[in-house]
């Protein structure tokens, strides 16, 4: 088991919450499901948040962007299997956990990336990685989504790696929290 960043969950048991499971499928189908999932969750949670007079549009967009980025990563880097999505909202604190199984070598590479992108100011790192990526045609721009979440959205991120129940892979849970205005 290995953990990075902020994995603490603060929303109470009675918070407005949803759990969704995206079944395994071809990339195109999964991509479409991710898109529909983030739009649905953005709508549902922003509507709930706006009951207190908050800005629906801002909240919806931030949730859609966050859920979409984490789901895109889960779809790209998972081994065959479902993706579980848990979200909750209490007092303007939106919490999201996306869990999926991934291959051990992918998990190790991702751990190095996490160590790098959490080591310094995300704004500086974002610009540095964009520059490096533009200079290298073969670069996949990995980490930019997470850095935009941290820098542009103020998202607090954490990662939890454990051996999967089958023992054949690594279960990665990515935790994120956003303060909605």
């Amino acid at each position, binding site marked *: 088991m290995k953990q990075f960043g902020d994995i603490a969950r603060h929303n109470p048991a009675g918070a407005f919450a949803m759990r969704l499971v995206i079944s395994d499928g071809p990339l195109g189908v999964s991509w479409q499901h991710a898109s529909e999932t983030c739009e649905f969750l953005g709508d549902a949670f922003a509507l709930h948040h706006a009951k207190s007079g908050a800005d629906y*549009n801002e909240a919806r*967009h931030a949730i859609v962007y966050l859920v*979409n980025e984490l789901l*895109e990563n889960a779809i790209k880097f998972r081994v065959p299997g479902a993706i579980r999505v848990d979200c909750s909202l209490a007092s303007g604190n939106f919490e999201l956990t996306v869990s999926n199984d991934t291959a051990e070598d992918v998990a190790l590479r991702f751990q190095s990336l996490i160590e790098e992108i959490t080591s310094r100011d995300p704004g500086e790192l974002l610009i540095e990685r964009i*520059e490096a*990526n533009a200079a290298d045609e073969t670069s996949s721009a990995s980490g*930019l*989504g997470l850095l935009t979440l941290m820098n542009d959205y103020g998202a607090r991120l954490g990662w939890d790696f454990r051996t999967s129940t089958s023992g054949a892979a690594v279960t990665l849970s990515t935790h994120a929290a956003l303060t909605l205005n």
Partner: protein
Amino acid sequence: MEIKTGEYNVWNEGSTIHYEGTLRLSGTDAYQPILELMQAVLAEKPQNMVLDLTQLEFLNSSGINLLAKFTIELRKHPELPVKVLGSTRIPWQSKSLPNLQKLHKGVELVIT
């Protein structure tokens, strides 16, 4: 030039490139046709360049990276005035577009 799908349109009118809809493509390769359209407009050696994003409701991080890469290409043409148009109605633009100015000081960012 125009790239049109059910989810997004990208087209140019002279040296103004318009983006409309939701861009959520899966990575650098998937964005390549759009980058090529942008590069083709630049290759015409325009007097100025405008990226009009005021109708682009959503852009994922791969798409933001596309804009960033193109901004770095524009930096190689310091004499070329570049304007990026955004909308306050679309929250990602106020959050992420200022990064383009960090990459290229010559970018004029207008978010209204």
